[in-house]
């Protein structure tokens, strides 16, 4: 225990104190590249080190990254706003004279980006802890896990469509191998393949959308900042092109009816992989709607968003109903995660400062909550050697601590005030109510009560889970002797994540302020429904 704490705390503080200066003087230290480079270094070190050190190296690097993420959060200058820590390196510039490809390696974060990078760092750290007891092919496991983190960090930080796409595709393949080799369940290979094919098919639409935008702009660049400045000056980057992006990002954020990869994938994925994937990679869908689709094509987006809102609402409600009927513990959680993603998309569709802020907070909080939920459920299923609800039951007797934690997690999912889920969902629904008044889209006023219904359903299926898994009579007498409560190292990541959720729930101001730095200019740029 002492060793583990040392390995966590030392690099964490090293990461936190790795740079002191303010953002403006930061040009000499590429903070954002470090986020990408650090997991890559973990990959290389694990590759060279013996098997038994794999988890130590990954934990060390991931806590360094967490420290870096915290420092990023605190040293982002809220008074200045906009993109900070920007790195701009020309990558492939010219192909002949007339073909400026406009591919720059440019990274940067604004308020929303900072929040998301922090959430990835937290999930990466928690995932490394959760994978502590992986026994099969440790080396390969930790290599792929860190590679997944490389892709996700890169996608969140990119300010260039090419690199956004590159990092996103980069993160797909490690997930395939993680699910295919370390997954659980009978159908893990099927699930892995389905997930990969779906995500790649989604990326096809993204790709076509990006290129359509690229050729529609007269300057031919993939730079997101330049393109969104262009669209602010009134140049239309294509009215229908936004559809490609909607489909692409929709697959990623498991929008109905292209969500079916998600329950299968998360049902079979190893715990840490589903934490990173469900927690943060899936959020990339909503994030890139805000970062790419809305600022680049405001006219198209404004026209189509109400239709997307209906799908998003369907996501929330229908997935909650589907979750009610599941017989597999992990599938319930997967559907619950999709349902929460629906709330994010619905918040984006309101095109209202409150609603969009709610969406961003929900992105962050979903990242945390989905990660805890998957961590906890993975732990319980691993201890019970099954994820069938019919075989589980009465675990409160043999694992009281985990049962208590699950109760807290369930409440966070339901959106109990004081936990992070509440803040996001409250703002989303407030936003949709306001949007009904401001934009004349009274449809939102009709829609949002239906959305609230999904919260009730969430409570229903989480309480059902709580009852079936923890509070019924113990179904398998063997469990009483065999199943033990969580150990320190197993509970640590769950506790860390829960504390983060609690902090946001109790004092959301810094987080909302941070996301507002992105959202208010964005709404100013798009103009809302008017």
């Amino acid at each position, binding site marked *: 225990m002492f060793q583990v704490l040392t390995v966590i705390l030392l690099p964490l503080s090293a990461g936190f104190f790795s740079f002191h200066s303010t953002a403006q003087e930061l040009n000499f230290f590429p903070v954002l590249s470090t986020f990408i480079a650090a997991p890559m270094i973990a990959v290389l070190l694990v590759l060279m080190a013996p098997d038994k050190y794999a988890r130590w190296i990954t934990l060390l690097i991931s806590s360094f990254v967490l420290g870096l993420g915290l420092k990023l959060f605190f040293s982002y200058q809220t008074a200045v706003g906009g993109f900070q820590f920007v790195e701009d390196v020309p990558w492939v510039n010219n*192909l*002949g004279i*007339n*073909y400026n490809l406009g591919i720059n390696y440019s990274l940067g974060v604004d308020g929303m980006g900072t929040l998301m990078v922090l959430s990835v760092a937290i999930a990466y750290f928690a995932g490394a802890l959760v994978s502590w007891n992986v026994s*099969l*092919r440790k080396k390969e496991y930790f290599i792929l896990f860190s590679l997944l983190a490389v892709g996700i960090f890169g996608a969140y930080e990119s300010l260039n469509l*090419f690199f956004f796409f*590159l*990092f996103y*595709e*980069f993160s*797909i*393949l490690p997930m*395939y*191998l993680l699910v*295919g*080799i370390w997954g659980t369940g009978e159908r893990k*290979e099927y699930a892995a*393949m389905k997930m*990969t*094919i779906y995500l*790649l*098919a989604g990326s*096809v639409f993204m*790709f*076509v959308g990006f*290129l*359509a935008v*690229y*050729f529609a702009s007269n300057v031919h660049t993939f730079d997101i900042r330049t393109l969104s400045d262009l669209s602010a000056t009134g140049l239309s980057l294509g009215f229908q092109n936004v559809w490609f992006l909607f489909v692409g990002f929709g697959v990623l954020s498991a929008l109905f009816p292209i969500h079916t990869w998600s329950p299968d994938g998360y049902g079979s994925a190893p715990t840490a992989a589903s934490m990173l994937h469900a927690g943060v990679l899936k959020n990339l869908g909503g994030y890139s709607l805000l970062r790419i689709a809305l600022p680049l094509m405001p006219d198209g987006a404004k026209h189509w968003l109400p239709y997307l809102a209906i799908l998003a609402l369907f996501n929330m409600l229908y997935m909650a109903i589907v979750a009610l009927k599941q017989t597999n513990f992990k599938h319930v959680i997967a559907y619950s995660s999709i349902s929460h993603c629906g709330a994010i998309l619905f918040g984006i569709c309101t095109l209202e400062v409150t609603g969009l802020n709610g969406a961003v907070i929900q992105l962050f909080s979903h990242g945390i909550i989905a990660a805890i939920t998957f961590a906890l459920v993975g732990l319980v299923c691993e201890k019970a050697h099954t994820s069938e609800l019919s075989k589980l039951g009465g675990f409160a007797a043999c694992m009281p601590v985990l049962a208590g934690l699950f109760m807290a997690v369930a409440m966070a999912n339901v959106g109990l005030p004081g936990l992070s889920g509440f803040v996001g969902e409250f703002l989303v629904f407030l936003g949709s109510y306001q949007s009904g008044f401001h934009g004349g889209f009274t449809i939102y006023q009709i829609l949002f009560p239906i959305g609230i219904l999904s919260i009730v359903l969430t409570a229903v299926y989480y309480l059902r889970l709580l009852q079936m898994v923890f509070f019924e009579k113990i179904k398998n007498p063997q469990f009483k002797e065999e199943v033990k409560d969580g150990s320190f190292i197993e509970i640590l990541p769950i506790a860390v994540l829960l504390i983060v959720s609690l902090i946001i729930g109790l004092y959301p101001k810094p987080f909302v302020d941070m996301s507002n730095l992105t959202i208010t200019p964005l709404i100013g740029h798009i103009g809302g429904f008017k």
Partner: protein
Amino acid sequence: MIQVQAFLPELWLVVTAFLILVAELFQKPDSTRIFIKGIAVVGVLGSLLSLCCVGGCGTCPFSTCGSVESLPEAFNGFLKTDGLALFFKFIILSATLLTLLISFRYFKANPTNYTSEFIAILLFSAAGASALTSARELITLYVSLETLTISSYLLASFMKKDKTSNEAGMKYLLLGAFSSALLLFGFSYLYGFTGTTVISEIGKDLATQVSSPLLTLAVIMIVAGLAFKISLAPFHMWTPDVYEGAPTPITAYLSVASKTAGFAAFVRLFWVGLSVPALQPTWVGLFGVLAALSMILGNLEALPQKNIKRLMAYSSIAQAGYITTGFLAGGPLGLSAVLFYLFIYLFSNMGVFLAITIVYSKTGSDQIEDFAGIWKRSPLIGVVLLVCLLSLAGIPPLAGFAGKWYLFSAAISKGYVWIALVGLIFSTVSLYYYLQIDPPKPQLERKTRLPAIEKHFGRLMAEESCNSERKTSIQWHKKERLRRKEG
């Protein structure tokens, strides 16, 4: 005036080939023919180096010949080597070199007495392909194309005691001859319309003419004839059979060098000769349909394949479709995307075929099932295979990703969004079958204790030592196949 530089690479190849044929006379029947192999490698390397002189890059200390302004030409300008031809030649010659190296390995597993003849024919074929890239005239183009293909017929049927190899050669010969006839038919119409066989003159002459049904027919014939050579659907029927039956190095050679030569002919003929307003919409539309069909059929038919060489055949059909997408977009962006992709394709495909050859030499089988657990049995080959296959599938950060990005962005820049969409969606499908070859199946590994293929890199060099091991491995795989058939 004849400038030797214009056909220096071909000269190297042909001279080397004849040297090998002569040297063969002095070899003992059961010798390992190290000397001949040495000559062959030196010859191809020399030919690659001679590209430097052809280019006239101006920096070469050994030659003062040629500059970018005055391209070397020979035979009344019928052969003229420009940058485009150089790049194509580089791909073709590299492919030849790699094929040679793979074939040494292949003939260790399948000994034959005709190694020298094999090498000589391969070099003749490469000379044809290489000459094709700088041909500026229809007859020259046709003759070099036939040098390439007739040698390929021989090479495909080279394992004369093997039934499938014979079948492959016969099929290739019949269909190839048919397609050549179509091509000549089209050429003769072109000549009839313009009165010249020089491609640039044809372009000038046609620019003044209006479209006519016969001219369209000529274009269709030419497209069909050449589409056979690069196996674009629906002219791809021969590909799986030939690729399966031909010796593996030749499959690799056909899939890279022969295809590259075909694209060189396409670029010359269509973007120089036939890129006139009267004809361009016709053939661009035609190529659009062919590309889409190849990407759809190639990827879908690859799914149920059990034999890895057949699978690679369908994969290469799909790849031809992707490349055609960039080709029909044209312009600097499209054509450089084609060249770039061919360059990547060379290495990815050759890597896969090298892995196939090595696995075959140890297991005596090309069935995909026998690749199971290759991760464990030979980590090095497993990784090489995985990287090459993922590059073919276009997964970043491998080169195939950048290649596909350029190809499809070229198509979208010219407004062919639908072709790009078809290509991209079906390239998603391709990931499924590529990953089937190298799947992560730890259960399978634990169930059956598969014999190792080659555990250590050192063994790759000294594989003579494990001949007995190889025999047991082949026997094991035979038994396993029988068991599967019964069960």
